[in-house]
């Protein structure tokens, strides 16, 4: 790894501490990264990873502690200073400007003046050299997520960084795109660039990283060599307890078709939205159908079409227990037994400023009969909310607290519980464990499996292939608004799914090839 610099670390953190009101986000954290080392930062949500890298990149200031760069103490007060020092960062939620071109976006992330023409040719040069093809003239909103990430990486590389920080870079990539990115990272490492790699995908870390630092609850737990650990041992260091994987059920005794979608085509309403093209699938009682896909391939539109937020042209396009519901609104569908857990917990799945009781009422009032003569039955609503909290282990001081005050995992348990207790015929769940810690994720997975075992048809839309393989009976892939035929999980591998997810935006491939073949699968 390190060729020249001996044993002076590229970056060293000593006792970094950052406190927010009521929360110690970083508690005396130490970290050492050698030149050319790929160093993983591991931890659950809320472990303090993001806070720590924001301190390194100068977005936040530490309350206490010292940052050393090549052995010398330095102060990084803002991102410009970090970039000047030689630190580049690829953000988890991209820091890109959708209405601008690739070149403009890159110019914005660089200090000083640029000649646009020169910059363009340097972009082409760098992106070709590292196998990250980019068209500098394209508007960002026309690009796939993988391409957007390339912009961020190229933007960093143009400034010849000594340290590259990557915050969960593969969460939006197909396995093939991720593998290409690893090649780029390994090459950078061999050129002496240090990489701080944040992820909670343990297999990735084992395959890529030389060292790993584990954080838990804002504290430094340990440093280890991930190649010497198993995924299970790493996970247990992360969460501090033993993990029990969800119990898989047998898919043998499946009931009748409960949700049936035939030839569903909808033109996207939002700009930059994806049109749905001839979607066909069905879900039987007792089974879990997983829909995989890279974000922005029509998931939002499909979920809206199923929940009733956007209506189909023909009412026959969507059938629930053989009743056509394609032109019914969300409330009518709920009455028939369709439950829905949207992707966005705050704002779509719940009203953050409202109490848990109110949030329970809003979705459950008709199925749970919480209305009395047109008025809210406060007692019954409170009982219902309390039942959710008790049965699904929602950690909250009380049901009178607002939805927004709950942590992501707890709120997700509340929302899933709220829908499950309505005894749905069909439940549609989007990204059930996105941003949820491992403990809550396991509980949510078990809930969905139990629900299916009781005869409900479960549809799960997710980007997380490990999750889909853990709970689904069958998997289909959505790509550019088209849905593949579904395949039982024992007949298909993660690699095949990954190829199908890639669609026409596969890294290193020109538009058009492989995508077409993949759709047929």
């Amino acid at each position, binding site marked *: 790894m390190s060729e020249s610099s001996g044993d002076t670390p590229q970056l060293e953190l000593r006792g970094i501490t950052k406190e*927010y009101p009521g929360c110690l986000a970083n508690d005396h954290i130490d970290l050492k990264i050698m030149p050319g080392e790929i160093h993983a930062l591991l931890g659950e949500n809320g472990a303090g990873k993001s*806070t720590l890298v*924001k301190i390194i990149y*100068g*977005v*936040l200031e530490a309350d206490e502690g010292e940052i050393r760069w090549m052995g010398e103490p330095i102060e990084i007060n*803002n*991102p*410009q200073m*970090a*970039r000047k020092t030689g630190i580049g960062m690829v*953000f988890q*939620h*991209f*820091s*890109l*400007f*959708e*209405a*601008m071109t690739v070149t*403009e976006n890159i*110019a*914005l*992330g660089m200090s000083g*003046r*640029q000649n646009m023409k020169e910059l363009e040719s340097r972009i082409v040069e760098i992106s070709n050299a590292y196998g990250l093809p980019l068209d500098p003239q394209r508007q960002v909103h026309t690009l796939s997520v993988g391409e957007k990430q390339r912009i961020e990486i190229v933007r960093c590389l143009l400034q010849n960084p000594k340290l590259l920080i990557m915050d969960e870079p593969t969460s939006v990539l197909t396995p093939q795109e991720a593998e290409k990115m690893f090649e780029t990272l390994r090459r950078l490492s061999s050129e002496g660039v240090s990489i701080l790699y944040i992820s909670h995908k343990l297999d990735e870390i084992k395959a890529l990283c030389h060292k790993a630092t584990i954080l838990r609850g804002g504290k430094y737990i340990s440093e280890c060599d991930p190649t010497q650990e198993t995924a299970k041992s790493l996970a247990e260091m992360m969460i501090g307890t033993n993990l029990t994987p969800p119990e898989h059920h047998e898919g043998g005794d499946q009931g009748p078709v409960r949700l049936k979608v035939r030839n569903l085509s909808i033109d996207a309403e939002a*700009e930059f939205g994806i049109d749905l093209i001839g979607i066909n699938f069905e879900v039987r009682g007792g089974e879990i159908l997983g829909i995989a896909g890279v974000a922005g391939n029509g998931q939002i539109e499909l979920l809206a079409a199923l929940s009733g937020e956007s209506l189909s042209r023909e009412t026959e396009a969507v059938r629930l227990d053989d009743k056509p519901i394609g032109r019914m609104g969300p409330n009518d569908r709920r009455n028939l037994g369709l439950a829905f857990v949207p992707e966005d917990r705050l704002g779509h799945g719940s009203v953050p400023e409202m109490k848990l009781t109110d949030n329970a009422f809003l979705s459950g009032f008709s199925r749970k009969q919480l209305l009395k003569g047109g008025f809210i039955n406060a007692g019954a609503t409170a009982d219902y909310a309390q039942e959710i909290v008790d049965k699904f282990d929602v950690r909250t001081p009380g049901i009178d607290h607002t939805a927004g005050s709950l942590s992501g995992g707890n709120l997700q348990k509340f929302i899933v519980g709220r829908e499950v207790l309505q005894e749905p015929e069909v439940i549609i769940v989007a990204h059930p464990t996105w941003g949820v810690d491992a403990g809550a994720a396991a509980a949510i997975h078990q809930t969905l499996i139990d629900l299916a075992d009781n005869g409900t048809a479960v549809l799960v839309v997710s980007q997380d292939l490990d999750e889909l393989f853990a709970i689904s009976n069958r998997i289909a892939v959505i790509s550019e608004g088209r849905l593949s035929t579904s395949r039982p999980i024992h007949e298909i591998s993660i690699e095949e799914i990954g190829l199908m997810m890639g669609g026409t935006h596969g890294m290193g491939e020109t538009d058009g090839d492989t995508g077409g073949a993949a759709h047929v699968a």
Partner: protein
Amino acid sequence: MAGFDWIVPVILTMITAATPLVFAGIGELITEKSGVLNLGVEGMMLVGAVTGFITATVTGNYFLAVLAAAFAGSVMAFLFGVLTLSLMANQVATGLALTLFGVGLSALMGQEFVGMPVDPLDKLYISGLTDIPYIGPIIFGQDGLVYLSFAVVAAVSWFLYKTKAGLILRAVGDSHDAAHSIGYSVIGIRYLAVMFGGAMSGIGGAYLSLAYTPMWAENMTAGRGWIALALIVFATWKPGLVLIGAYMFGGITILQLHAQAAGLDVPSQVLSMLPYVATVLVLVLISKDQSRIRKHAPACIGKIFHPAA
């Protein structure tokens, strides 16, 4: 040729009617491009108009008067900035309040000056060129602010699309979170943009009280600030179209005046409504094509920026 003699005065008055809209519109365009919606244009114009008028009558120096109007407009805008950017008040409500405040403040400031005459702004005269029939007085016979308005539109266009600073301004309006995480001072940039908008509104107001009708009267902007706001949507946030739009609205305003003077058999109130009816119609037509609007509209407009972690 005698039959066309009326054309030159019509075009000349059209230019004077359009110029305040150009200034106010281009200023608000910069404000909105940075992601801030300032509905206080009308108020800032009025304060600019009265400040310019007072300075002109007291000092007799028109250059100073225009500067004072710009300064007064940007002070109003700074106030708006403090409320919405630093104290994070709702931009719509604050903008409306700024307009009401401007109406009252300008009336108070101008109490002593109502009805006072002042010489209109000097017009350019180049012997020979200005004497060319028809185009001479139109191209070479305007006052300085008219030429300045064209220069400002060209400068803003160049700034927005050819300079790094303009790129940063657009970026802040497109995604303030991304701009913040890259390390740009969202609030600082927005302050500058809002104050530029105020200064331009102030000059637009001063044009009314120093050139269009060289006098001060309460509420003399008569809704032009609102037309300037509508202009930006009409122009889909493009500087060149703001200019064209301003001349279109200016033209309609003048045509109805001339139609009244010609004794057209339509109630004068109906004719006075024309510019505003045109505003509404154009907005409806433009709004039909949402994608065109979204392409140039700043995505963060009106959203409050919390510089949280």
